[in-house]
């Protein structure tokens, strides 16, 4: 009872500070994100190119999603292409990355493993992430250049592994696999550190208690580490997912010159080129594609959070029950 009235007094006298602390965030977010978001929705109802000021209703969505006449069919086909490219590239780098990172994080935080030089490994594994994507793209394009002047192709030809040059940059599967590898190379260290910081946030005495009770390594990982890691793991999954859907730098930059490889063009590249290229000026298609991307992200995101909240509620309930007991 005493506790409760204390809480009430606190909520009366300090509430305004809560608003003061969160005000800058919401102010800036409203101007630089909310308004642009609504502006994007608004633009998606207007035309493309020369008809940019013409209100067309849901025409852009209809074109992108279902096609129609000759010009519309082309727009539809390229939209479907960039959408599937995005999902292929996302899966291709996300799956190996999360598995690798989880294993590494478990190893790094395992006090019973004797690994000399842990600190150095962590620093080195995170390093590719610090390398600017534009620089990494430039490096890989030069190394894997399609022509025989490219370092890797030159080497393969010289040693007789291939008789023809391989199109690492302009090819279909070759370029996709390359981007998946580069993305994994750049991001696994980052993901590992995020997961590690979560594992290390787990109360060490839990592991001590478990090992005194005779719990094995594997048992500790699955019964303590993974369940308690859930918030950070969820965070990692969600941010990786968002990152995957908005993958732009590597697909946009890992190309021959300025010509975009059609097989690695992601939805983010498509959106950017359509509104930023003044020769296209396709604000309508670009905005409509953005809205579709928004819907996809929202659905995936809310599924993720529904799972999490459900478990949160269960935990809270069981906590309340234990308090009552």
């Amino acid at each position, binding site marked *: 009872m005493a506790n409760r009235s204390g*809480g009430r007094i*606190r909520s009366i006298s*300090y*509430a305004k*500070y*809560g608003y003061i602390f*969160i005000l*800058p*965030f*919401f102010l800036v977010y409203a101007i*630089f*994100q909310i*308004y642009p978001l*609504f*502006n994007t*929705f608004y633009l998606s109802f207007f035309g493309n190119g020369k008809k940019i000021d013409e209100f067309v209703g849901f025409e852009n969505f209809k074109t992108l999603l279902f096609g129609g006449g000759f010009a519309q069919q082309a727009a539809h086909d390229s939209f479907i292409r960039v959408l599937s490219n995005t999902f292929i590239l996302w899966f291709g780098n996300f799956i190996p990355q999360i598995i690798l990172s989880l294993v*590494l994080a478990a*190893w790094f935080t395992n006090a*019973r493993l004797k*690994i000399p030089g842990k600190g150095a*490994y962590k620093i*080195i*594994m995170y390093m*590719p992430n*610090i*390398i*600017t*994507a*534009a*620089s990494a793209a*430039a490096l890989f394009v*030069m*190394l894997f250049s399609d022509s025989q002047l490219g*370092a*890797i192709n030159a080497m393969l030809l*010289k040693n007789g592994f291939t008789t023809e040059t391989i199109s690492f940059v302009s090819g279909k599967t070759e370029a996709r696999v390359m981007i998946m590898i580069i993305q994994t*190379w750049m991001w696994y260290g980052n993901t590992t*550190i995020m997961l590690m*910081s979560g594992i290390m*946030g787990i*109360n*060490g*005495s839990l592991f001590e208690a478990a*090992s*005194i009770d005779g719990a094995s390594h594997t048992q500790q990982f699955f019964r303590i580490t993974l369940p308690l890691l859930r918030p950070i793991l969820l*965070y990692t999954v969600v941010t990786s997912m968002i990152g995957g*859907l*908005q993958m732009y730098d590597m697909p946009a*930059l890992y190309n021959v010159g300025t010509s975009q490889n059609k097989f690695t063009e992601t939805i*983010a590249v498509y*959106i*950017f080129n359509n*509104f*930023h290229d003044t020769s296209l000026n396709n604000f309508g298609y670009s*905005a409509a594609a*953005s*809205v579709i*991307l928004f819907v996809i992200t*929202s659905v995936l995101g*809310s599924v993720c959070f529904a799972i999490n909240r459900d478990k949160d509620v269960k935990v809270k309930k069981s906590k309340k029950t234990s308090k009552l007991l």
Partner: protein
Amino acid sequence: MNMVEEKVNRSKPKPLDIIVTACMIILCVLSLIPIYVLVVNATRTSVDITGNGVSLIPGLNLFKNIETMLDWSATGKVQYDAFTGYINSAIIAFSCTFLTVLFAGATAYGVCVYDFRLKGPAYTFILAVMMVPVQVTSVGFYQFMSKIGLTDNYLPLIIPAIAAPQVVFFMRQYMKSSFPLEIVEAARIDGSNEFRTFFTIAIPMMKPAFAVQAIFAFVASWNNYYMPSMILVSREPNQMTLPMMVNTILSNDKLADFGAKYAAIMLSIIPVVVVYFIFSKFIVEGVALGGVKE
């Protein structure tokens, strides 16, 4: 029993230890090799690179390559000027990091420490908008910025850093697990005002989270190619960020000297690598400190 076993383990490495260490060394080599090859190629002649492919042995041509590259920038053959790029990227990245960490910390603190009517909706909002990718708003953002004449300006690249929902989410998670609210009450009893409590007690206690997030924010901003290339439409050489400059090398097919190209890419990553090695100890320590000690 357990104690005895532990001692035995300590004196002799187990097979698992060796396997794990080997895996880690392999991964480290894979992580480093592209960067090593870049540095090596920056020291080789163009003829050597195109003729012999990848080599792990450095050449002697580094200064000649850098000279060629500087000559390119001086004669305007390519819009790559490492020094200007460093300054431009640093201005944006440092401002963004500072704003992100400070205001995300403040927002998380506000949501965590205080009880107010809109607390629930405010936090739910932050969780919801975490899902919104930049690309979704960029058409509207770009159109809005051109309308109010803020293209070719750094402000649209810096100010939005104040509102970083993902960082708020992370900070709040961290605060919930390792920032006891009793401390705030104790500070109040000792006569500290709310802002002083935030700056002198909460921030120092939250240092690991701030450090990790600051590094992530800095990396994200420094590496950002999307936003600068969207906002800096005129591609003014004295305004471009480093990633934009590197891209001009790649898209310029008139540059024939491969050694000099590699040297230019190498120069573009040197400052980040140096900054990283200063900060990396901090990040690893920060992560290590992140463990909740009772």
